[in-house]
């Protein structure tokens, strides 16, 4: 009887894990894809990256203790996977044209302003772009971004502020700040 009990327990635990995983994919796969797309700047690489991220998440799902932090957890896995798998391809990508590689798959808004913003965003250094993408695409809080990027919360806020300032300057180069 004990054997059947442990078999049943195993089946149920696996089913529970499967359901938890399905929920994560259901809720976060779109955001993961958008984040991956900005990281890889290529649609099929982004798809592969999300698949690898989810595979890794599946393997270590038992380590996810706090469900409320699942999004930040997945973003961290994606970031690490990207560094692991694609970092070595980056030099090839830098040589290619910005508007044919960086922006070809990110084409929802085709206005001139959106294009200028995309270019400016693609031109930001990693330290500024990363927190901004995590905030805008992932909807992560400063604290969560800090934990994903392994920096302090105040450093996160500073980077977000500067990143937005740089982008705002592209849209409204002549405008100064409103307040005094």
């Amino acid at each position: 009887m004990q054997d059947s009990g442990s078999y049943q327990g195993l089946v149920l635990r696996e089913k529970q894990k499967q359901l938890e995983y399905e929920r994560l994919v259901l809720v976060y796969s779109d955001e993961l894809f958008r984040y991956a797309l900005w990281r890889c700047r290529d649609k099929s690489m982004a798809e592969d990256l999300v698949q690898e991220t989810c595979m890794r998440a599946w393997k270590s799902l038992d380590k996810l203790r706090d469900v409320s932090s699942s999004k930040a957890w997945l973003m961290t896995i994606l970031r690490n996977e990207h560094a692991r798998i694609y970092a070595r391809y980056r030099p090839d990508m830098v040589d290619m044209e910005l508007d044919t590689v960086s922006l070809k798959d990110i084409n929802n808004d085709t206005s001139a302003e959106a294009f200028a913003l995309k270019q400016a965003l693609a031109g930001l250094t990693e330290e500024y772009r990363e927190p901004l993408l995590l905030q805008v695409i992932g909807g992560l809080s400063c604290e969560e971004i800090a934990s994903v990027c392994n920096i302090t919360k105040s450093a996160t806020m500073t980077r977000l502020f500067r990143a937005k300032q740089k982008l705002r300057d592209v849209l409204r180069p002549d405008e100064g700040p409103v307040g005094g």
Partner: protein
Amino acid sequence: MKCKEFEFEYSAAPDEIAGDACEHMQGCAFCQAFVEQESIFQTQLMNAIKADVPDGFRHSVRKHVVNNRPSFWSIPKASMAMAASLLVAVGLVNVNTTLFNDHGFPIDRLVMEHLEYDGAASMKASHQLNKQELSEVSEQFGVRLVSSNNVSFAEKCPIGGSYGLHMVYEYRGQLVTVIYMPELSPKEFVQFNYAGIKGWVKPMKKGSFAVLGDKNLEIPGAEFAEETIEWI
């Protein structure tokens, strides 16, 4: 708080300002104007960054893991099936599905909870499915759709402690959400109307069938369940 400090905090994290910053904004016309400008900028930024997700992407991500995951599920299926059937045959296993069935919620709440997970997109036709795609999904549930032309979206979704076949169905020119749940069996027909959504859940010979739609839509009656699916 000074205006510069407010600008810094608000610009860095507009959704996280509280306390001092809120108080400052309420009494400062400059910062109120800044907030308006920022809101336009945030929208522009959001639109520029957003990208279309490929059709069926979620499905392919799931499939990837199902095909590649290690451990328990990588045990050959024939061996698993044989072991399971032997245990069932000798009466040792009685998988208690009620353990996962409802998370303590009545079935209408479960269905609503699922819609909340899935978001507004699940109420719309995201892409048109071809017949083969549709039958691949529905056959996983042991059912066939009587009129596949009316279904524009179908996906296997987690609902409560099990799975459901979630579809967007065109009914008299309007889109309604239809969910077949093979493992959830309510004792009786349930109607509900809350949070702007109305619908019903009907027990079937196997599992149950739910229909949901905007409260202002005309949704089909209970006979729709038998008219929509047939068992394989």
